[in-house]
């Protein structure tokens, strides 16, 4: 059993029970019972190892109602998220995943995205722009991901970043219909086999095209390509777009020519922040824009509260849109800062928080903007 590899962590949690991982867990905030918290899931893992519980669909419901945001691991000496992932891998092996997860995985395998959108339409968003297909002479491969490629709101973000990169004079291109899923969510959902398949395909494709540097729109893709791909192949130089923008603003390639008078708060995406410790680049970009007053939410950086979309939940939607759903909690927190703009650096966070603003009836008071959109208006 895979979780046996985590026996020491699981048993340590079982003898300690401090529960410090619980209160800020987005899943626990929504569902309320301990079984939906990091500590609760460690108890379940312990009971499975002890033979007190068998793996069932009921366990799968608790284990998959987790965004893999990493808060619990940040609050603990044990890597709770890794245990949850191992439990998911067990559930996948036994065919015990919830139908929503099964559909996500099957669709991603077949179409390269969970929404069954045709592969040939993946590059359509770029048609009306000056963004062109990747060529081996390009410095950067601009990896867009399926949210940026298919979602209408995601399209706008993808275009905005393309415009900014062009403005910065960078040579880059996109893969369009040749782009495949990066696999981060597949990995987080515990389908290691499919993840390896996607990863190997991508690595081969990138190598064939002579890719050396990759800039990603999504922190999810950034996480997979930066931390997982090197274990299986070439070491591409992978950057999240905020890191690249920070660099070209610093070296003067990208000039901010206008200001934006607004009170702005920034939401750290889990896969950029907690997973990759990049807290400064997005903030530095915003602070470089004249007129922006950057205010922090109470929970920020390592303590940031997840939007609820991670680990495939933007598709599986186990959290629903109730008052205690993570995206609504986060939007209320942002609104309480007095900010007019909630800035994000992730297309998944964008769609999750955009939905929440509407449900909360705050559209007139709080706008969700990706940093790439904000920058595209001031260069």
């Amino acid at each position: 059993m895979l979780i046996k590899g985590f026996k020491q962590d699981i048993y340590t949690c079982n003898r300690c029970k401090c529960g410090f991982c619980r209160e800020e867990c987005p899943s626990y905030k929504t569902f309320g019972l301990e079984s939906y918290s990091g500590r609760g899931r460690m108890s379940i893992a312990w009971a499975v190892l002890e033979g007190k519980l068998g793996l069932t669909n009921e366990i799968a419901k608790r284990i998959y109602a987790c965004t893999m945001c990493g808060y619990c691991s940040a609050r603990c000496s044990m890597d709770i998220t890794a245990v949850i992932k191992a439990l998911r891998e067990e559930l996948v092996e036994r065919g015990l995943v919830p139908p929503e997860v099964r559909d996500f995985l099957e669709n991603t395998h077949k179409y390269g995205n969970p929404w069954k959108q045709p592969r040939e339409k993946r590059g359509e968003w770029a048609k009306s722009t000056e963004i062109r297909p990747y060529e081996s002479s390009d410095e950067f491969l601009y990896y867009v991901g399926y949210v940026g490629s298919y979602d209408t709101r995601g399209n706008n973000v993808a275009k905005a970043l393309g415009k900014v990169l062009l403005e910065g004079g960078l040579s880059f291109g996109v893969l369009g219909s040749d782009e495949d899923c990066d696999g981060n969510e597949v990995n987080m959902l515990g389908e290691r086999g499919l993840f390896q398949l996607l990863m190997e395909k991508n690595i081969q494709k990138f190598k064939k095209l002579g890719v050396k540097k990759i800039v990603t729109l999504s922190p999810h893709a950034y996480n997979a390509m930066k931390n997982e791909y090197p274990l299986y192949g070439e070491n591409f130089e992978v950057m999240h777009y905020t890191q690249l923008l920070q660099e070209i603003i610093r070296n003067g390639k990208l000039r901010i020519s206008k200001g934006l008078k607004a009170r702005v708060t920034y939401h750290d995406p889990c896969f950029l922040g907690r997973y990759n410790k990049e807290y400064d680049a997005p903030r530095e970009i915003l602070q470089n824009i004249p007129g922006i007053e950057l205010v922090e939410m109470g929970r920020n950086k390592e303590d940031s509260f997840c939007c609820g979309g991670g680990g495939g939940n933007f598709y599986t939607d186990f959290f629903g849109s109730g008052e205690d759903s993570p995206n609504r909690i986060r939007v209320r927190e942002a609104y309480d800062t007095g900010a007019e703009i909630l800035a994000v650096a992730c297309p998944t966070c964008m769609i999750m928080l955009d939905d929440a603003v509407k449900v909360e009836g705050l559209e007139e008071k709080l706008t969700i903007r990706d940093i790439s959109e904000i920058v595209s208006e001031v260069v």
Partner: protein
Amino acid sequence: MAAGKLTNWTSEKIFATLKKIVGPENVSCNKVDLIPYSRDWSLANASTIYMPDVVVRPKTTTEIAEVVRLANKERIPVVPWGGGTGLSGGALAVKGGIIIDMKGLDRIIEIDEENLTITTQTGITVQKLNEALKKHQLWWPHDPESKFASTVGAAIACDNAGTFGTKYGGSLVDYLLGIEVVLPTGDVVKFGSQAPHSVSGYPLHWLFIGSEGTLGIITQTTLRVYRLPQYRCVDIIVFDSFKSAINAGLRIIESGLDPESIHIMAKEGFIYYTKLYEVMFNKVFKPPEKMEAAMAISFAGLKDVAEFQRSMSSKIFSDAGGMVVEERELVDIFWTEKHTLSYDAGKNPWPLSQTQHKYTGIDLCVPIGKIPVLYKKYKRLLKKYNFKPATGCFMYSKRLKFAPNCIFTINVNDEDPEEVERAKKFIHELAKYSIKCGGTISSSRGVGIAVTQSLMPVEHTHLALELMKKLKHMLDPNNIMNPGKKLAD
């Protein structure tokens, strides 16, 4: 939530009624949902669990009253569950029944800045309460290390320890102005008021302090709060003996100085912080050869006043043979770990981590002059029972100046039943000695189902215990409220 297996306590009809009371999404008797409520931090074999039959998560006092009324009618045990961090098993369903997860009652009702009180539901964590108070430049100086997970209700029900007792009291008696309680019959009663002091009735709100969920469920409370201090300074002073550390602390208080916290720890506990200092700063702190105890002391308030007190205290420490720790990073590490938790200790390979052993211990309180002999007894018993100290012994000065809340700790291999039994004997013997010294078997963690429960008739007279039992029976005639705890059945 799915129903799961129904048991004697929870027939289809009872389960359906519970769903109606709290909503179907807030009740479960599925084993997957019950397992996380089957253990806490208390000493037990690694495989021991106490499974409840059902867990409910109400959001209002009315819902709790209805659940309790049903339980009382059907004679089902009811166990209130807060943060689940207990060290005495107080929230475990040792006789099965209904766990009431109190954390759904997390609403703050009023922060009264003018009168310095907060009225709140009791399922909120201590940390969240203080985060809300901070927005008003206020705080509740009750500061248990479990604050990130433990609830206000549990703080009252266990009367647990915090750091700032030297100045603010440290017992819930010093904070609690009023409470709302669901009695075991399902009746809802309010005790106390917002008045800072009252002698008009029996102070029954205090009866529920340390009641460990055996007399009723505390659903709402009004607490005394304070303005946040503008400035704080902390020092650590090392001493060659516990006795000299305690005497220095007493002299500080007698001098008219007003420390907000005094925390004395044995060398073993201090090593925890010096190791972290090594890991984080790559520097080594060399304690004096003869060191037995270290004292952390803080002064807070206006900067000039706090710093003045600090300078005055340093002379007293020097006269008492103490040596002030000059390494400020080490002092900062101690304070951060103790009060805000950086988690770094756990993330590094750690000599005191729970990856190999279970941390356990006993929270005793003896007259202050008896601490040195109790400490010697602890050392002797470590040898006798062959245990290594976890964080050794440490104490907070609690309850208006210098009532020591003494924790004696050991590391136990909880996967070895023989060692767990040996640990229980160790705790039992040390607790018995505490009573012999004129002390008590628990000063902050409660009795719960701890091995010390059998010492209740040693600490308390027969008539006193009988009166406690009569009181319990009067309030809880069917013995449904957290049965088997504190006073054994």
